[in-house]
């Protein structure tokens, strides 16, 4: 198990590039690398089956359509959706959240309604709701988190008493590493009559997520954070919401009939996919799912846990470190700071040692405000990382402390 990182690395050509020799890539929460299986699946599509899907009466177009719809079926299976109709392809998780806001929420929200988010949301699952609230004079309410980065569920319960229309919450935080008890939260939200939008950008890549078991209303995630290509994301929309959803982007396949003064729409899910779609992206995402399934999502989660546990243990021993987020049950993104070293300077130092970590607010400025910080450094792991790489990180941090000593 601890060897997963070693054995699997070979499949990722980026790590074999001489220019990236010795690279310790620890920015997986931002985007992952791609195994050759994913890139080759896209290449195969372009070199053998490429055509504009859905509309051609010739065989090549049929193969393209099949590739696209097979990818949709694969996504549906991967997250346990009841039907492929519930899978809408988007550009990324961000667009998927916005689509929920424009396609559904704009049609049901009323003045004075409440929308619940949490203080640990990524901007992508926060600002769309902020703007929605502004458009409808609705109230945006925040569930806070405690010193361990855990959501304050008593606040959540109190807010549910307002009978909010929408609850938008992330399953795993990219800034704190918190894994939220979303199954329970969904149950309570539903009991209060709310519709739940789950941000799976950091969960779907790392653990088995089953929308039917969760009984979630909407789930969003991005292909590029789970070995898949850039430019493809997913909105899962439970069938019960379909009739209340209206198209947002118009043109191309999403249409069934156009007349001079009005038009009619195609069926789900195509009515939300306007214009020529990123078929190669969907094909690449399907290949990524195959890759992850071959490993098994439990093995993926186990590897994350191994690395994260070891990293937390080692990091804690560094003098002058502050770790943000939970002590236990920590997701694979670890935010921290070293006293007196700005995370930006730290990242530059580590980069010179070929260690790629993120520094900044991680698109979670509310988290930073709450912690009274401008920025943190963040190391985030995935299947190709190894325990030795964690050691490299720790060594790098020790050297950085030494280097910046005189700046303190």
């Amino acid at each position: 198990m601890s060897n997963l990182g070693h054995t699997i690395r070979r499949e990722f050509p980026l790590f074999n590039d001489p220019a990236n020799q010795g690279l310790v890539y620890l920015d997986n929460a931002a985007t992952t690398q791609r195994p050759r299986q994913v890139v080759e699946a896209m290449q195969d599509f372009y070199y053998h089956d490429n055509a504009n899907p859905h509309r051609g009466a010739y065989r090549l177009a049929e193969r393209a359509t099949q590739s696209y719809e097979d990818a949709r079926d694969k996504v549906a299976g991967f997250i346990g959706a009841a039907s492929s109709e519930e899978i809408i392809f988007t550009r990324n998780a961000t667009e998927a959240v916005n689509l929920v806001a424009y396609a559904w929420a704009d049609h049901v929200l009323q003045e004075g309604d409440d929308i619940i988010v949490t203080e640990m949301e990524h901007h992508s699952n926060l600002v769309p709701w902020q703007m929605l609230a502004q458009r409808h004079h609705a109230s945006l309410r925040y569930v806070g988190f405690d010193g361990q980065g855990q959501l304050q569920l008593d606040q959540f319960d109190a807010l549910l008493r307002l009978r909010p229309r929408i609850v938008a919450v992330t399953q795993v935080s990219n800034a704190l590493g918190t894994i939220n008890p979303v199954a329970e939260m969904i149950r309570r939200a539903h009991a209060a009559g709310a519709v739940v939008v789950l941000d799976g950008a950091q969960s779907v890549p790392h653990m088995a997520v089953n929308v039917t078991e969760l009984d979630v209303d909407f789930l969003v995630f991005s292909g590029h954070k789970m070995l898949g290509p850039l430019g493809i994301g997913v909105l899962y929309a439970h069938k019960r919401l379909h009739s209340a959803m209206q198209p947002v982007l118009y043109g191309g396949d999403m249409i069934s009939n156009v007349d001079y003064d009005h038009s009619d729409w195609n069926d789900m899910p195509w009515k939300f996919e306007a214009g020529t779609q990123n078929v190669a992206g969907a094909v690449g995402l399907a290949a990524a799912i195959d890759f992850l399934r071959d490993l098994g999502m439990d093995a993926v989660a186990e590897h994350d846990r191994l690395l994260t546990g070891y990293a937390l243990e080692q990091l804690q021993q560094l003098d002058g470190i502050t770790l943000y987020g939970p002590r236990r049950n920590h997701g694979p993104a670890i935010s921290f700071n070293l006293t007196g070293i700005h995370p930006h300077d730290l990242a530059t130092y580590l980069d010179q040692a070929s260690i790629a970590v993120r520094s900044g607010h991680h698109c979670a400025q509310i988290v930073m405000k709450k912690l009274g910080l401008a920025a943190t450094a963040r190391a985030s792991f995935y299947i190709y990382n190894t325990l030795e790489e964690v050691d490299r990180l720790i060594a790098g941090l020790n050297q950085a402390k030494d280097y910046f000593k005189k700046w303190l």
Partner: protein
Amino acid sequence: MALDQLYQEILLDHYKQPRNKGVLVDPNVRLELKNPFCGDEILLTLRVDDGVVTDVAFSGHGCVISQASASVMTEKIKGMTVQQVKQMAEQFSDLVKTGHAETVLREGGDDLDAFSGVCEFPTRVKCAMLAWRTLLQGLEHHEHQHHYLDDEKSRATD
């Protein structure tokens, strides 16, 4: 040649002399559907009395496959119960997708069999199914309405 499997003589017959072409004067089921990707249209009118299709007609325009399929369909379903129609639709869908079909269709006979070649032409499955999809949706609306009327009635007598 695969093409001859698609364009069988029986289809030719139906295409040139479509059965039940037109619009019923007094239908209780009426639905228009469009194949969004080729522009083909069909208008189906039916009379369903006591759960039995007593009359049916189709109009519209389209390719050989969609027109012949509509013609064959109207011929087959007249006199059938709604239940039988639904079963046949499912079997027909299997047939055009896989080339094989179950027993009910066997009883339906040769004219439907003539669509077994469609499975080699996946882009044409939609054409073969257009009339049947229209039929199923029309019947669904009808049942809905029916139930609704029943409900109204029962509530009225409450």
